[in-house]
């Protein structure tokens, strides 16, 4: 089957988990014989794309088509996300290379839609598969013009990213895409329930496709080299309200009061990073909390190898792939109950998202109860490694077959 797949990012040029998931999913689809034409806003040329045909907006028509005047008003988006939150000013650390587009997200989306339109006119395909709201409009247009079915894939919802300030235009784009789709794939049952409730969708059109880990080496070295003397609690993700770093900081105060040897490592960039650093100093935790900034590649592996417990305290987390990465490496995991990954990782501790005391209690339990830590490490690794993109791809292909029937 020929699939026109639309996504906003593609490794190595990524801001969140979306690009990683797209790469792993397309590889598994290709291995199962699917033929994928993937359109990103900008192709850099260094992407791993041997398994598919990757087209960037910059490949189309000798440059970026400007948005048609009057079709969309140019407005700055106050949302913390663009489409995923970018690091705050002084601590900015671009993930890679120059950003190809201007700061106006909706203008970028209009450009992307124009590029996709052009690709869609020239290419032939049996189904359109669009990832997250930024590509929903382009997907709906392409599917309608070509007369083929549309599948949209929800990796996160606007309510996940900005629970306290949803952008009405993003919400509208998201809802339009979800309603236009023949089938909606969601990364967790939690996300499916939320999408259904937010946009009044027909539950029979929802399917759950849990993420998995890209291929891991059979064994990863644990505890190769420890930089810190005491136990390490790791947070790895965007430092933004959605991920709950402030909750972790409050828990850190309670944990350190009991056990001053504990270090909290906050690995990631985000709009809350500066205020988190200031707050850490203000509450006297500076010696106990280390901010590493954005990590990638081997630095991520090192962070996991040093961790005694991994914490994902998200207020809202459609999936939470980092929890699987930690678990697969034998790091005990603590999740908030607002994490979709909890559906596939039962050997993790779970706390309510805002329950600081419970979070501190569970951190201390993992650090001081070896039987618990050992069980979570062993069983978590088994569960995380049992999940595969191959089976995720099989569910995606079943959706293709269903809509094309």
């Amino acid at each position, binding site marked *: 089957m020929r699939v026109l797949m639309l996504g906003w990012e593609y490794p190595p040029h990524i801001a969140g988990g979306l690009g990683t998931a797209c790469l792993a999913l397309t590889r598994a689809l290709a291995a199962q014989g699917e033929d994928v034409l993937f359109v990103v806003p900008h192709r850099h040329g260094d992407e791993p794309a041997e398994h598919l045909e990757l087209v960037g907006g910059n490949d189309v028509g000798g440059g970026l088509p400007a948005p048609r005047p009057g079709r969309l008003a140019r407005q700055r988006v106050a949302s913390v996300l663009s489409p995923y939150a970018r690091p705050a000013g002084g601590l900015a650390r671009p993930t890679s290379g120059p950003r190809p587009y201007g700061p106006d997200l909706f203008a970028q989306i209009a450009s992307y839609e124009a590029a996709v339109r052009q690709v869609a006119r020239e290419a032939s395909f049996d189904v359109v598969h669009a990832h997250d709201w930024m590509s929903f409009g382009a997907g709906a247009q392409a599917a309608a013009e070509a007369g083929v079915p549309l599948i949209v894939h929800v990796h996160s919802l606007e309510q996940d990213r900005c629970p306290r300030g949803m952008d009405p235009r993003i919400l509208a784009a998201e809802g339009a895409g979800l309603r236009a789709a023949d089938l909606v794939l969601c990364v967790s049952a939690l996300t499916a329930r939320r999408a259904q409730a937010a946009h009044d969708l027909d539950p029979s059109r929802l399917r759950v496709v849990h993420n998995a880990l890209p291929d891991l080496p059979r064994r990863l070295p644990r*505890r190769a080299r*420890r930089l*810190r*003397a*005491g*136990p390490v609690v790791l947070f790895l993700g965007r430092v933004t309200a959605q991920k709950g770093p402030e909750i972790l900081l409050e828990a850190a105060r*309670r944990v350190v009061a*009991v*056990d001053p*040897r*504990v270090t909290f490592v906050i690995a990631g960039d985000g709009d809350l990073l500066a205020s988190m650093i200031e707050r850490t100093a203000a509450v006297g935790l500076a010696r106990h909390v280390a901010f590493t900034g954005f990590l990638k590649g081997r630095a991520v592996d090192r962070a996991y190898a040093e961790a*005694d417990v991994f914490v994902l305290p998200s207020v809202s987390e459609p999936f939470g792939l980092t929890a699987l990465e930690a678990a697969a490496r034998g790091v005990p995991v603590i999740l908030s109950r607002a994490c979709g990954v909890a559906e596939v990782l*039962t*050997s993790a*501790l*779970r706390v309510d998202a805002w329950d600081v*005391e*419970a979070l*501190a*209690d*569970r951190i*201390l*339990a993992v*650090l*001081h*109860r*070896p*039987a*618990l830590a*050992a*069980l*979570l490490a062993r*069983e978590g690794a088994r569960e995380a490694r049992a999940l595969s993109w191959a089976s995720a791809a099989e569910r995606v292909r079943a959706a293709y077959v269903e809509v094309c029937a």
Partner: protein
Amino acid sequence: MSGVVLYFQVHQPWRLKRYTWFDIGREADYFDDALNGRILRKVAQRCYLPTTALLTRLVEESEGRFRCAFSISGTALDQMQRYAPEALEGFRRLAATGAVEILAETSHHALAFLTDEAEFRAQIEVQAARVLREFGRRPTTFRNTELVIARDVARVAEAAGFTALLGEGADHLLGFRDSTRIYRPEGTERLRLLLRCYRLSDDIAFRFADRGWKEWPLTPAKFAGWLEDVAVRRGADDSVVGLFMDYETAGEHQDAATGILTFLEGLPEAVARHSRFRFRTPAEVVALKGSALPLALPRPVSWADAERDLTAWLGNDMQRAAHEALYALLPRVKAHGDPGRLESWRRLSTSDHVYYMSTKFFSDGDVHRYFSPYGSPHDAFVAFMNVLDDLALRVGAPRVAVPAALA
């Protein structure tokens, strides 16, 4: 004489309250009174009160031909006393008919036999005295927590003066042998072992309400026919069929709408009419002089799960760590001398606490989950260990928690 022994287990644990690391040293009250009261009153309403009244009526109407046995854990007796005294009164009335034998067990439904024989004997004695006090007769039959039998259990039971022991008629215990015979556990002389016929017991306790079961709906007459089949197959007239089950099966786990109470109501007459079996209590069965076959108990056998072993309680590292830490603390608790602390420890020795930590079927979510007040087995372990640390502090023992390993 073919006998059918109907025995019901009554038990409620003292469930813990939400207890975090930060409560250690601050909160000496470990148990969730509101939750325990709510559950006890609900179970009393659905099972203890109506079912006990029904059984009392059956005994009276049959003029004692219907007979059965109960074991009521000390923790359940305490909770009834506190939250639903009328339920305890109902059991007293039933026992007063003389047709009901009250068995002995450990006072706190503990797994003490595994680790601490002195505590095992102490809890048995506490319970035996309690049964005498509450029901007017000292028990002569012993059933261990979760029906666990083992060589040491049999030895201690005999030494404590019991003449009958109840156990699970597990296939891996019996091999080719028959669960309807009377056995003498190896290492004992006078003790007699009565076994649970798990197929017929589970027909009532688990399959009765299952509409997908090919025998559904199960009628008393059909069940009495199955009993008669047992005797016919044996070709002898001395079968003893043990129907052992949780009492809560009758009205709580399977509610009245399933027809379970109507089934029990019709059972005495159907058994009398369609089979050669007569209802007997365990003490009556062993009082009949007869041969007992020797039986080896090479490893502990319980009535839980398909494995019929101890893995529901001690199957993973958390459960073993919790069990070990609990019993390691006991000498300090006893030396401390405060009866309140000892009672707290004993409530923690109730096997339900480690059962909640079982990861055996957690992901499938089934019977283990049905009974657990926790969101996960890990949460059960965390709360239990925090409580244990508090108790350790209060009796002047070192905390259980170990510092995380330094690199």
